């Protein structure tokens, strides 16, 4: 059915098939829980013989996401992030340790990407989000005004727990890294609670595997493939994958608003690619997926060369792909299941698809 095919085409992550057969299927039940936070759904599937204990630990992990949402939400005026955004201009303010850590990580990726990743881009993103909701397309003046508030170099972290903005209108939005941080915190809590086989999902865009599902070497994740031809996959075990893609374009044509904005230009990113990133932590995969989408394959490859345990794949609608990275693997099953490529330090593939 056409809709089903197209729905799959939209997925950030398509399907995980985890065969659970024989004894294990009967002896290891799974618990599945979900919670709405940070504007998306967090879910955990855990295989555990002690269902009640696992359930309680999952609840604790999901509570942690809610706690972090209350701290890092820019929609909630009472959140620590909102308070900081109101009061840290030319004046240092104390912030919670988690928030400090996330901003610190953000700045790391801003430096690595020379500003392509920037958590201060919020004022510009908001302009384009309003356009997506039916509001007017931002004018050049609107953009210029908002862009004047952007710039990670104007964020000063003062150890151990203070922050100051050297701009009168700076506002941080942690949407491109906060989910990853929350997933890492969940994984810590689950492990500490004795959960050894679990799969964590933040809205389909960031996922993490703890241990392995019964009788398998890991949690197989089929990645977003805008071409529907390549079927890229990763097998998660104590690592994470995140996918970024610009908002799908309007069928009406014209200026297409989008939620990913280029900090330097203040305009929505125009790209043919979706990018998926595998990394040891969800914080890293989340931040890097946005960064590498903004950078594109050429600059992106160069950037991740220096990073251990990171692999990435860019795929365009017409099936053009670039795989790069080392330490972690992305598998490709292109037109034939027997053709398998994988990324490692020396093996990068940039190929054109077969024309059907």
């Amino acid at each position, binding site marked *: 059915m056409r809709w089903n095919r197209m729905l799959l085409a939209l997925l950030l992550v398509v*399907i*995980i098939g985890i065969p659970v057969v024989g004894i294990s299927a009967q002896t290891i039940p799974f*618990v599945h829980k979900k919670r709405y936070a940070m504007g998306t*759904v967090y879910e955990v599937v855990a295989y555990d013989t002690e269902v009640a204990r696992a359930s309680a630990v999952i609840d604790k992990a999901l509570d942690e996401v809610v706690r972090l949402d209350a701290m890092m939400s820019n929609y909630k005026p009472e959140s620590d992030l909102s308070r900081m955004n109101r009061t840290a201009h030319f004046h240092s303010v104390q912030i919670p340790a988690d928030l400090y850590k996330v901003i610190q990580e953000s700045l790391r990726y801003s430096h690595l990407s020379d500003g392509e990743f920037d958590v201060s881009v919020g004022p510009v993103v908001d302009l384009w989000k309003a356009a997506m*909701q039916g509001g007017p397309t931002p004018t050049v003046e609107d953009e210029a005004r908002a862009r004047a508030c952007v710039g990670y170099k104007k964020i000063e972290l003062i150890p151990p727990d203070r922050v100051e903005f050297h701009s009168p209108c700076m506002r941080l939005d942690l949407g491109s890294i906060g989910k990853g941080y929350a997933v890492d915190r969940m994984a810590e809590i689950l492990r500490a609670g004795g959960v050894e086989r679990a799969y964590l999902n933040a*809205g389909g865009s960031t996922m993490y595997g703890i241990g392995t599902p019964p009788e398998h070497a890991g949690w197989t994740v089929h990645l977003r493939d805008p071409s529907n031809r390549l079927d890229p996959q990763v097998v998660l075990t104590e690592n994470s994958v995140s996918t970024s893609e610009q908002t799908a374009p309007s*069928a*009406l*044509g014209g200026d297409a608003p989008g939620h990913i904005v280029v900090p330097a230009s203040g305009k929505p990113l125009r790209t043919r690619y979706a990018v998926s990133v595998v990394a040891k932590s969800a914080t890293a995969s989340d931040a890097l997926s946005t960064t590498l989408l903004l950078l594109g394959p050429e600059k992106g490859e160069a950037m991740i060369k220096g990073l251990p345990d990171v692999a990435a794949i860019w795929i365009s609608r017409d099936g053009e792909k670039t795989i790069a990275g080392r330490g972690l693997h992305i598998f490709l099953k292109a037109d034939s299941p027997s053709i398998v490529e994988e990324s490692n330090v020396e093996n990068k593939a940039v190929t054109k698809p077969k024309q059907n």
Partner: protein
Amino acid sequence: MRLGEFFSALLLGGVLVAQPASGKVFLKVSQAELPPARAMGVSDLVFVWPVGNDSLLNKASALGYRVFLEATPGDLSVVADAAEKTNAVGVIFDAGNLDSSASEEVLRSAQSAHAKLSFLLLNPGGKEPQMKARLVVDRDGILQVSSPTSQPWVDSNLALVRFARAFRPEAIPLYSFHWNLSDALRKKLGPTAEDYSLAISEADAFRADVILDLHEGLQKGLAHNEAEAWALWNNVKRYVALQRGESAPGMLSMPLANTGIVTNNYRVSYEGINMMARHNIPFVVLRPADLEAKRLDGLDMLVVFSAPSIAACRVLDDFAKQGGIVVLVNLRGDFPWHSSEPIRRNVQSAVYSVGTGQIVEFAEPVIDPEVFSRDMRRLMGVQRSSLSLWNSLTTIAVPYREKPVGETILNLVNYALEPEPVQVQINGHFSSILYESPEGGCCQSITPIERDGFTEFVIPALIIGGRVHLKPTVARPQL
């Protein structure tokens, strides 16, 4: 410009038929071990035929329940006979694969043969209402997980109910669904109070009847007077009570909408309609035969999924000339507006300027419902977006006008089952805004802000279901 005032009179004799103000909750049970109906707060029980032992039905009746038997086309006649013999009040007919005209015919025939029984048609395709990001199914030992979108996905029954309303306007839509029990804990313990409450709130908000499977464990617990079971059910009863609170005699509801979806094909139009519901675009479903000028007052947009007749093309053309927006989805033909060149055209769409309105032709069916709904919002623009919710991605809001008092009711359903602040923007001015909920009772006064012809207010914490009463600033003529 055709700025159809959202809360303007919605057509005398128009397509938006006034409806009885509330539906009902039916409980589907597997045994007669139950407390009395009064204690349950629900009086309609459904048994699947064959029941096994007729004494169960008599026992249920003795406990104060109105008993219905569920039948399929193959056993309708037998079930109806049994219902009469056992003092059941009616039969719920699951028509299965029968098409709508065949099922109507079967029902008519059964009704004439059993005049004392009440026959209700079960609409197929009901879903468990829920928020989800993935599917998890346990089938032949396979766990599958998929993510339709990074935003929360809401499975609702609004599209189903609105479609049923259009095609059987005289009947309250009735649907049911199966709880997903693949999760080990849920299988053992059954749905939670929140799950039941969500299903009840949803049916109430959509003005439909719903059949809920009562988990066997809960049923036993209630019958044996177990404290845990009663704690759960007493929470659920608050939602049943809220629903009942609306059943004042003579009170009728009219759905308020500024978008009409023209279709006679549920399958083709479903995904688009479903996503418009999720985006809180107030809509009604119109049959192609409803496309008459007098029936379109108050609508700003028509989204057409079924090929229009020549007469209907003229109606669409006139609708656009008066400022309306017409969207044709994957329909080809020699239309009147083709006498002019489109003002914009790309591979996916062509836009024609017609009078003070416009007609948009999409070249393909709805491929991405999310993009489609966003495009509908963009076409409508902010001024004609009669209802908007901010930061409430898991909430569906459904507005009604209450007859005869003229009050506007906004029903809210939060599929996340967690308290969420809901920011609402609604077209019009109101003298008072009151919020009613199962947790807070009736009613909390809400302070609004008025801006550019809209009223904005915040519901501080919508948990599962709630209702906003908006009293008009000036008296309006009774419809």
